[in-house]
């Protein structure tokens, strides 16, 4: 009897210890919880979410199911689910530009996540601007997006090329400071007979095309003397997209389309990366993925020859208030936070909100996000100070010189005084659809740049009136970090 009692006690003790160990392994314990995340089709972003899901599963014993939709389908899928207030998704990953449309259906980030070391580590451009809507935090950046410039260092450092370039254009071959220089370089390296073209940008409707156009225009339309007036006049909400700054941007964007590979008009960002990594082009603009993919020897023919810089700028910027060009003593770089980096949020209708925010914490932790940032094809670009400060982290994919230029370009762009924020407005798709349509016509030569931009401006003004000018003006000012108008 005593023996049996002792055996039972021992067994109970062993089971209690085992259970204790299991609970200790799951901290916090989300055993049995399965989170569903809406994402664009991988590998971009979806693979980063899966990386975070694996880490979260190890930590909490919960599961994450990443549901992927093609880019063009993501907005309708999320919007339909949110407006129907169903609990299809516990988390949604999306573009910051869609935040105004989604805000009424999202839960606010728990206050305890809005402070501490990890919080302060997020670059202010994201933490204080893109993650904020009307003073509240509804989403967390999981990717940093700013357009930068990528070039082939082997071509740019070749003495023969340098001499020939200087002889033709009268200045040194180097990463361009202005868009004119950018086009000169593209023209110089346009050698179809040798399988080399000038530049690669996205020009395809539905292929992230308009962000590339915005990058060109930012240099001429984002005036530091009249902040926040790049897309609309922040006093009247009149569309600015047809002002002379934008016209110049569009003319140069069209010119760039003629200095790319023959199928450039069909390029989305994926094709841009393929062209750069394939050594087809001398230079390019785009998100940070380009540099990472081009540096990866498994994916690239130009590994070890990848240079990075900030986007070109201008010393003349259109002033929407005075309706004149403002002349500056030197060239002002024109970085543009195109897209603004993927964000992740928790819908109000979600049934596992606490677990969902905990997943966000793991996913965007410096360790997990740092790993994602150096993984080619993850779609995650630096958005934390620790991402760009840790050169050691990047030594796995870049040479020291490449890493220095790449991280310098990223950090300088995000922190530049005149960095242009992307448009964030309710009804975003209605505004960008007409841009895509008219850009297509202008690129195909069916209409002039001015006529295309006039058509965009007319539709933007009509949409603003339809959605309510005062409401849209308030939203636009909030998006541009301007105080509410009295």
């Amino acid at each position, binding site marked *: 009897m005593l023996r049996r009692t002792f055996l039972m006690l021992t067994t109970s003790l062993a089971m209690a210890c085992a259970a204790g160990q299991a609970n200790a392994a799951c901290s916090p314990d989300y055993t049995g919880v399965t989170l569903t995340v809406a994402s664009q089709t991988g590998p971009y972003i979806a693979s980063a979410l899966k990386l975070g899901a694996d880490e979260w599963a190890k930590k909490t014993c919960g599961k994450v199911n990443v549901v992927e939709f093609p880019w*063009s389908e993501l907005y309708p899928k999320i*919007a339909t689910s949110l407006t129907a207030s169903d609990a299809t998704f516990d988390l949604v990953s999306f573009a910051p530009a869609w935040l105004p449309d989604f805000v009424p259906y999202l839960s606010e980030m728990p206050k305890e996540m809005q402070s501490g070391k990890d919080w302060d580590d997020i670059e202010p451009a994201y933490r204080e601007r893109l993650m904020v809507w009307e003073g509240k935090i509804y989403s967390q950046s999981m990717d940093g997006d700013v357009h930068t410039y990528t070039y082939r260092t082997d071509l740019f450092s070749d003495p023969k090329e340098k001499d020939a370039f200087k002889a033709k254009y009268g200045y040194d071959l180097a990463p361009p400071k202005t868009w004119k220089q950018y086009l000169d370089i593209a023209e110089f390296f346009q050698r179809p007979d040798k399988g080399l073209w000038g530049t690669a940008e996205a020009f395809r409707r539905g292929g992230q095309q308009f962000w590339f156009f915005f990058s060109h225009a930012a240099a001429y339309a984002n005036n530091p003397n009249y902040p926040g007036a790049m897309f609309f006049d922040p006093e009247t909400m009149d569309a600015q997209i047809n002002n002379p700054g934008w016209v110049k941007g569009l003319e140069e964007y069209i010119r760039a389309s003629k200095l790319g590979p023959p*199928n450039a008009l069909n390029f989305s960002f994926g094709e841009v990366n393929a062209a750069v990594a394939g050594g087809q082009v001398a230079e390019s603009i785009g998100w940070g993925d380009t540099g990472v993919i081009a540096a990866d020897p498994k994916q690239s023919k130009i590994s070890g020859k990848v240079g990075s810089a900030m986007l070109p700028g201008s010393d003349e910027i259109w002033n929407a208030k005075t309706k004149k060009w403002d002349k500056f003593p030197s060239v002002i770089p024109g970085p543009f936070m195109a897209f603004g980096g993927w964000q992740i949020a928790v819908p109000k209708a979600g049934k596992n909100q606490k677990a969902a925010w905990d997943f966000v914490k793991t996913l965007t932790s410096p360790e997990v996000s740092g790993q994602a940032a150096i993984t080619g094809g993850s779609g995650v670009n630096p958005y934390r100070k620790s991402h760009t400060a840790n050169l050691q982290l990047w030594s796995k994919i870049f040479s020291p010189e490449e890493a220095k230029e790449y991280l310098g370009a990223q950090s300088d762009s995000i922190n530049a005084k005149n960095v242009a924020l992307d448009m964030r407005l309710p*009804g975003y798709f209605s505004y960008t659809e007409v841009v895509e349509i008219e850009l297509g016509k202008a690129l195909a030569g069916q209409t002039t740049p001015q006529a295309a931009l006039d058509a965009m401006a007319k539709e933007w003004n009509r949409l603003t009136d339809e959605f309510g000018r005062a409401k849209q003006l308030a939203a636009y000012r909030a998006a541009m970090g301007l105080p509410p108008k009295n």
Partner: protein
Amino acid sequence: MMRNDPIKHVFIWPAVLVVLAISIFPLIYSLTTSFLSYRLIPPIPPRVVWLGNYATLLQEPRFWSALFTTTLIAFIAVGLQYAIGFGVALALNARVPGERLFRVALLLPMLLAPVAVALVARMMFNPTMGPLNQFLSKFGLVNLPFLTNGHWALACIIAVEVWQWTPFVILMMLAGLQTLPEDVYEAAELENASAWQQFWGITFPMMLPISAAVVFIRLIESYKIMDTVFVMTGGGPGVDTETLTLFAYQEGFKKFNLGYTSALSFLFLIAITIIGVTYLALLRPHLEKRR
């Protein structure tokens, strides 16, 4: 059971209610929505605009452009499908060697999902990596802007439509040809009628009813084209290849402009009805002659 037995209501009303629930009510709801200015994003409270959405649409160049593009694709594609399909059906009906193999092989495109076909076509027509331009390059010819020029893109969409749906025409026409009476042809042979005369005098007129049905089905289906265009061109460049369904999709599922999209759907319905009724009215005298 007497004619006026109330029990009849027990049998009739469930069926009536089911029909109302699954077809009439959604249609009425959609019609009602078409009289509203109603957006889900950004959320705007519904407001009655009566025929405002219809008036806006009728003044919208993009609507007319989409209608023209859809009509162009439908008429050219169906015309080619009919001509090629009838020709192939005639050849197969002549019991050529290996006819069964040809019949199965020629039907394969119809069995594929249009999205898959469009994806393959997008690769085929890729200006640099696509086999078509690579083939042209071997002969020193320039790369053609298959999907980046409006006219070429339309031609490519029509080519894909013809490739995928001609088998349907072949199938139907072959079935029709196999029901034609042999004795009429034997009589024609005795009269020394040539093959051409036999076709125009016997085959074509006797195949007219089935031809009318096949063309009608294909025409209506072609007006609903969406997936092929969506995948191959997304409606671009500009709106050069945007069809009515794609336009409705953009308004409804991208901009969530529900009132406007409902009005667009009803205009689409009206357009298809007019085309269908005109088509049948034009054919009626010829078909009645056959009775």
